[in-house]
């Protein structure tokens, strides 16, 4: 919920820079009241119910107060490094983010490329689309044994799982975007005799950008879902294996803390891609 607060405050700030300070403060107050009060109230209520349900000594799960006191060391020192897997939460998350960055970046490049191919060429669509439709239903983790066998190493295998998870929505959305480019834009390009590269850069990418970005946004969400599961199996530093490790050591409070972090990071990733999309597709849908 902390992240929620932060994001809302950031998005409110640029709106109000133009006006005078009192108005600025008043607006921030109003925005705060409208957007922050409900989630804070619900969160407090949720914590209260949780506390009541889990505070009996017989409870299998710890109440929030105990989670907080158990994990205070981890919260307060996110950057400690005792070597091996015994590093702070920040390092765990950064390690996971690094894998996601590699796998997702590859998926973006390959996904947009294949999406353009499938969107442009009817022949490619007939040939590839059925294969994509089958492969995209394969659960991310089902790829892991195969990639471990292929790469003989855990890190590239995890990256591959991210790649193969994120690529399908990117391909499919890109190809739909390409196919939906209005005939008028194509005609403009034909009258101007734009060559292939010019058409790709000046017409195709901007026209399909809203679709491409909705694919990218789904893709980043799926990547983050997949990394936690993949890391549980491949081990090493990373938030997924941290959770698995905590389970094996019966540190339930650590698991709860890790889940909160995973949720917050996933939320931020989603908003980052959405924000980048808004920045890039500014104007594209107008007309």
């Amino acid at each position, binding site marked *: 919920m902390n992240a929620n607060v932060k994001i809302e405050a950031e998005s409110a700030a640029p709106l109000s820079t133009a006006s005078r300070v009192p108005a600025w403060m008043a607006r921030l107050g109003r925005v705060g009241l409208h957007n922050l009060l409900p989630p804070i109230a619900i969160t407090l209520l949720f914590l209260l119910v949780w506390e009541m349900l889990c505070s009996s000594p017989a409870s299998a799960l710890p109440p929030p107060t105990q989670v907080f006191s158990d994990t205070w060391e981890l919260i307060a020192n996110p950057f400690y490094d005792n070597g091996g897997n015994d590093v702070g939460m920040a390092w765990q998350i950064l390690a996971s983010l690094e894998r996601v960055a590699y796998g997702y970046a590859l998926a973006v490049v390959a996904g947009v490329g294949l999406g353009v191919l499938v969107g442009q060429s009817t022949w490619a669509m007939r040939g590839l689309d059925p294969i994509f439709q089958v492969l995209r239903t394969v659960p991310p983790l089902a790829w892991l044994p195969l990639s471990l066998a292929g790469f003989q190493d855990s890190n590239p295998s995890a990256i591959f799982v991210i790649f193969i998870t994120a690529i399908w929505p990117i391909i499919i959305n890109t190809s739909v975007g390409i196919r939906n480019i*209005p005939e*008028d*834009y194509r*005609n*403009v390009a*034909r*009258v*101007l*005799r*734009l060559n292939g590269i*010019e058409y790709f850069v*000046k*017409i195709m990418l*901007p*026209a399909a*950008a809203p679709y491409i970005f909705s694919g990218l946004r789904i893709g980043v969400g799926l990547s983050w879902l997949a990394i936690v599961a993949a890391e549980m199996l491949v081990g090493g530093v990373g938030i997924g294996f941290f959770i698995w490790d905590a389970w094996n050591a019966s540190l339930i409070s650590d698991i709860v803390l890790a889940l909160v972090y995973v949720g917050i990071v996933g939320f931020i990733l989603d908003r980052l891609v959405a924000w980048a999309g808004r920045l890039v*597709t*500014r*104007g*594209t*849908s*107008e*007309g």
Partner: protein
Amino acid sequence: MSKSYLSIEKVFKSFSRGGVTSQVLSDINLQVERGQYISIIGHSGCGKSTVLNIVAGLLDASSGVVILDGKEVSGPGPDRSLVFQNHSLLPWLTVYENVQIAVDKVFGRSKSRSERDEWIRHNLNMVHMGHALDKRPGEISGGMKQRVGIARALAMQPKVLLLDEPFGALDALTRAHLQDEVMRIQAELHNTVIMITHDVDEAVLLSDRIVMMTNGPSAAIGEILDIDLPRPRDRIALAEDPKYNQYRQAVLRFLYEKQRKKATA
């Protein structure tokens, strides 16, 4: 052989879909002199846009040829620039950039960067859009978009300017205003223009010749009317002009008596 600047010779067009072939155009012949303003008028669905698209090169004729300035037309090109009914500006580019993309492509080699910049501004000023260079199409009105569309088409210095119902989507006042602008620009630049329209007044006011098309399927040129009115033309003065009204009636008679749209659902 043709001696005209633009000649459309024995053009037939049929579309086939699922084994069914429908004849759209039948034996279209038209000679256009340099600097002439031609309107093609007819009921909707008569294939007038098909004629324009064949001249533009966006469609291929099933048989027959289009010859422009001594060369056979094959495929689209900037020597036949189009103004589309729905303006077709690229919404992610500013007004300036929408013209720039055309100018850079057509004059990228022959003009320097500063010459191109000046040429873009010149064309946008000509349609009175110099004040909105950095606006995006989503931020300007329909009439303004169409002005930018015209500027983009003119900036290519086409041999023939093709207008596909350029004012069709505009309200009456904006339309009249833009028609006057087009007449003014035409008087200045002496472009060769082919305009598709279904507006009788627009056709008579703007054109040197009106090509009236019969109803489809298998549409052909029904009549060609030469409009012998002095330029510059003034729409208010012309409203009283008996010659103008004669022309108007001739076109109306063709459309509503000879080619009355059959009551098809």
